[in-house]
């Protein structure tokens, strides 16, 4: 009883809260990193170096008035942010944050597919938000978003097939263990796939340079234009939670999850004193930093260019990658 119900529930509670707290600090990190990139200081007032800003921001958002536009579809308008946030939290169930059983909620044998499937539900939040607002800019944005998410989902999923071929399993833990057995991170055998997943991940999380659905300068904030207060912050949470998901997935698939570099080279075993979860979170942090760095640097793609990139470049490369991987796998 304790093993099957209490412990998983405790894990889930810790995980959900952990993700939410992590999100607030990711926001702070984004503000700080972008500020440094732009020769500013960023938030400095609340707490030492503005660290407590991470707590103050959500409080501010929660205390704001929650407005529902008069002509909005009230049910959908309320449902949309929930639909957006819940999948983003659910996928963490299969992410292994460390080698020990303590560090993941469950290990299902189709873990990777589970992540893809559940994140694909998140798009409803965006579409319904745009539709339910009964406003033109959000509607345009949600159309953009849905087209973008669907096309990049195809590219990313196809790319993941080649990783699955390499690992021979769909389980997240199995993939990391496969890397341990192989003795190298899959980044070194699947660099193309890594780049594709990274680009596709940026697009699926609506991060710059693919942030068309919320392009502030074009669509005045996109699908969440009409949102405020708590419901707005749910979209916000979902976006950053998705960022965490993508970082975690990339770490698991290509950067050996909780493994240290070259896990079978004995000469590096002095690194073993570092706990596995530190490796994992360190790598995740690196990718979060990369995402933020990209946002500070690059201009935004145009919508049709984005679609062209997805369909005409990423998908063919992904298919080619599958073929090459399969051939190599058969030959070896």
């Amino acid at each position: 009883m304790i093993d099957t119900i209490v412990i998983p529930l405790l894990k889930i509670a810790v995980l959900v809260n952990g993700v939410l707290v992590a999100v607030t600090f990711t926001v702070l990190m984004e503000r700080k990193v972008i500020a440094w990139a732009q020769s500013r200081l960023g938030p400095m007032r609340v707490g030492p170096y503005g660290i407590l800003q991470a707590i103050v921001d959500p409080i501010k958002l929660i205390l704001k008035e929650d407005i529902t536009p008069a002509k909005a579809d009230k049910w959908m308008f309320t449902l949309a942010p929930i639909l957006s946030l819940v999948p983003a939290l659910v996928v963490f169930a299969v992410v292994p944050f460390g080698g020990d059983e303590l560090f993941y909620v469950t290990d299902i044998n189709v873990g990777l597919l589970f992540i893809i499937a559940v994140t694909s539900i998140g798009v409803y939040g965006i579409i319904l938000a745009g539709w339910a607002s009964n406003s033109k800019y959000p509607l345009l944005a949600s159309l953009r978003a849905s087209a973008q998410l669907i096309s990049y989902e195809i590219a990313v999923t196809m790319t993941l097939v080649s990783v699955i071929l390499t690992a021979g399993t769909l389980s997240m833990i199995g993939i990391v263990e496969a890397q341990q057995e192989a003795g190298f991170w899959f980044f070194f055998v699947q660099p193309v796939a890594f780049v594709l997943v990274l680009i596709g991940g940026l697009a699926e999380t609506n991060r710059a340079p693919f942030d068309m659905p919320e392009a502030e300068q074009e669509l005045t904030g996109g699908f969440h234009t009409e949102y405020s207060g708590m419901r707005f912050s749910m979209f916000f949470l979902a976006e950053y939670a998705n960022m965490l998901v993508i970082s975690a997935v990339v770490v698991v698939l290509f950067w050996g999850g909780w493994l240290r570099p070259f896990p079978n080279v004995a000469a590096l075993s002095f690194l073993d004193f570092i706990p596995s979860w530190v490796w994992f979170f360190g790598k995740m942090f690196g990718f979060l930093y990369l995402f933020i760095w990209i946002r500070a640097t690059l201009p935004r793609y145009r919508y049709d260019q984005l679609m062209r990139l997805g369909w005409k470049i990423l998908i063919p490369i992904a298919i080619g990658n599958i073929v090459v991987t399969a051939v190599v796998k058969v030959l070896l």
Partner: protein
Amino acid sequence: MTTAPSPMFDTDELVINMGPQHPSTHGVLRLVLKLDGEKVKDVDVVMGYVHRGIEKLSENRDWTQIILLTDRMDYVAAATNNLGYCETVEKLMEIEVPRRARYIRTILAELQRIASHCLWLGTHAMDIGAMTVFLYAFRERELILDLFEEYCGARLTYNSMRVGGLPLDIPTGWDEKVRAFCDVMEAKVPEYEELLTNNRIWLERTRGIGVISAEDAIGLGLCGPPLRGSAVYRDVRKDEPYAAYDEFDFEVPLGTRGDTYDRYLIRLEEFRQSIRIIRQALDGLPEGPVMGKVPRLLKPKAGETYHAIESPKGELGYFIVSDGRATNPYRFRVRPPSFCNLQGLRPLVIGHLVADVVALIGTIDVVLGEVDR
């Protein structure tokens, strides 16, 4: 995919109201976009939200008070507006301006051009999504504002010139600070370029966007960088030199394709040319008074004139009629470059996507204070 041929589904246009409150219409411009999907079929440009009747007001203020009003037109290049107005009155009254004043005016006008282009670069890049360039450009603009503050005490609306010269000589050490700024700016321009010029995304967003031929550009009355982007050699500083521009050596950058990218390159090159002009002016800064011989009461003889200068936005013209009796102009007309350039927006925008609309508003560089006056 099969909907379009079927008569069951009519393809309505989506009419979108962009502005007057919109993050990238640079003030209170309003565009009524008729969209087919995301493609712009037609656009109606609506303006006048900051119309303050500066022309009418000026006809009821005396000649010196008007300088203050000209500040409020293109408020990101106030000194240039001052310069254009003062020169027009000087032309009307045939006042000779001391050489030192003309040099300092040139320096101020060029600093103003850099400041205005900084603002343009920042907002233009921001519209296309490159947020860091925005802050970099504003960082340098801030230095210019500091210089202006030291010269005339104001940071935005300078009121920095008078008919016949300048109200003040430059403070001691100011020229050295300007020189230092030139060095800083020269080092920063490559920084902007590094972020944008060869950036693939930037190229894709600006190459071939908003192409306008030289003929169309002339016919539409475009001026400044949008006109030069279409390879028309037209710069009032060269064609009809004013202030001290005929004494300096500088080049007028020209585009080749007439697209957004060319206009971007031109303005970046103008940063360098402006720095070059400022350096020459500082090197050759003559001694002497900064105010010419001007009657205490300004009262030009009856007559009218049109005088144009090259503001950062383009040809800024003043048409002034004096009736010879009153101490205010009988007719005061501004030929606003932003207004005339904005007229080119419609042909530029049609056929492009919504995302390009913001890039195109950025590329023609309008200031609504000047459009509406």
